[in-house]
């Protein structure tokens, strides 16, 4: 983290649905290589926050600058940002009509304009990285949940993004599959990828996060390094939240 210009800069960002403020003047900056874990109660705006970063959700006020590009109405800018920002969803969202390999090469071939052979080599490389090289020719429905989520991670990585967003990547998984996905994410952290993860996996957060973000009712209630956050959260609400999820 020698480069001190933020790769993500959100300033006073609000997102309003009807008369409900899902995001309320949120400001956050993330440095290249930094790993941020976002947590908070349901409905507090965590998904909305990270979905604004690749404009799956548009913001109503404030500014978002990602990798030097300000997100606005310009569709070219938006697509340029999306190519730098990978996203992994709770429900995997793999393309069910394509094989694993085709899922991985679709973006590189159509968006990056790679040749098929180069894209396949890239894809096999990333399948190795998520430890399922042998599943290349299967369809998503033939894989377990954990395997599907690892394919989804590999699909994002194939676009060679500078930033990875995770929206509760393990919440839809059976307990015995959570670790295989978290392991892959920890390994990814080891490569120096900039990561923003919405997750309630506090063990993972302790291990990889540089920064914890706690959200509450559309606002960022607390930003702290993990040691401080877990041992001594400054807001009462965060303390209550931690008690609840660490209870068991």
């Amino acid at each position: 983290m020698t480069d001190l210009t933020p790769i993500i800069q959100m300033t006073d960002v609000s997102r309003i649905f009807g008369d409900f403020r899902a995001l309320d003047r949120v400001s956050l900056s993330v440095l290249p290589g930094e790993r941020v874990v976002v947590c908070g109660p349901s409905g507090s705006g965590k998904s909305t926050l990270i979905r604004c970063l690749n404009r799956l959700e548009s913001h109503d006020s404030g500014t978002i600058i990602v990798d030097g590009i300000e997100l606005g109405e310009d569709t070219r800018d938006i697509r340029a940002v999306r190519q730098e920002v990978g996203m992994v969803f709770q429900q995997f969202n793999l393309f069910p009509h394509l094989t694993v390999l085709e899922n991985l090469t679709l973006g590189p071939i159509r968006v990056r304009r790679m040749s098929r052979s180069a894209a396949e080599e890239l894809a096999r490389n990333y399948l190795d990285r998520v430890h399922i090289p042998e599943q290349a020719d299967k369809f998503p429905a033939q894989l377990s949940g954990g395997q599907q989520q690892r394919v989804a991670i590999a699909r994002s990585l194939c676009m060679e993004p500078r930033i990875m967003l995770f929206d509760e990547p393990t919440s839809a998984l059976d307990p015995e599959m959570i670790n295989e996905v978290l392991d892959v994410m920890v390994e990814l952290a080891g490569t120096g990828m900039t990561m923003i993860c919405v997750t309630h996996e506090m063990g993972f957060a302790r291990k990889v996060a540089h920064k914890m973000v706690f959200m509450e009712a559309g606002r960022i209630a607390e930003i702290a390094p993990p040691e401080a956050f877990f041992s001594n959260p400054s807001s009462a609400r965060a303390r209550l939240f931690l008690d609840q999820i660490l209870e068991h």
Partner: protein
Amino acid sequence: MPDTARTMPLVRRLRWRRLFGTRAVSVLIYVLVMWLIVRAALQGAAAMGYNWQWYRIPDYVLERTDAGFQPGELLVGLGATLLLSASAFALALTMGLVVALLRLSDLVIGRATARVFLEIVRNVPLLVLLYVFYYVMGPIFGLNRYLASILCLGVYHAALVSEIIRAGINSVARGQWEAATSIGMTRTQIYRFVILPQSVRFMLPPLTGEAVNMIKSSAIVSVIAVAELTTAGRNIISDTYLSFEIWFTVAALYLAVTLCLSMLVARLEDRFVLGS
């Protein structure tokens, strides 16, 4: 009757239903009903003094000449019907896709255009539309009766096809859009590589129904004397007065074609389900 059915003890009602539900009884009832209908028709025809000449019909389907078999007038007409329907259906698919995409687009003008098109087509009878294409657009744009028919049928069926395509597109999960969007694909790419291939499975059954409808409604172009199956039938009858035999045969030919089509697509669907 409904009263006795309602007061009948449940067990007995169930027993009756089970009896009528068996295959043997169903077939028996079916045969009985068909026999009654056919008998009534034959008796009616006999009462009219109708002179059945079925032996003359095969020649209109397959003509035996010195050179061997040749397609008869009806078979030629059937070919023309299929060609006409296929061209019009291709047009309906193309226009239907465009209209569906316009309706789903962010463009206000696009959505408005699509709505106007749909309202007009839905609210004008097919026959009137045909007259508009043939007697109004025909002279203006120099359309012959064949082109006017294709355009008319294509436009008419594009309305329903667009609804089918729109429903198919909407039935693809929202997350598919998001995943494709998040890897930087354009809208066009997302439709082409992610959404449409998945929605084909949902669209295939209703599109088959629409293709069958197309073949059936193509008969209407006989009113502007386009040479197809129904026109061929009319021509033969005006020469020979074999009206019962010919209309039965024409109906059977339409039925055969549409049944074949449905069976073909059912096969195709199986393959789709297996593939996914």
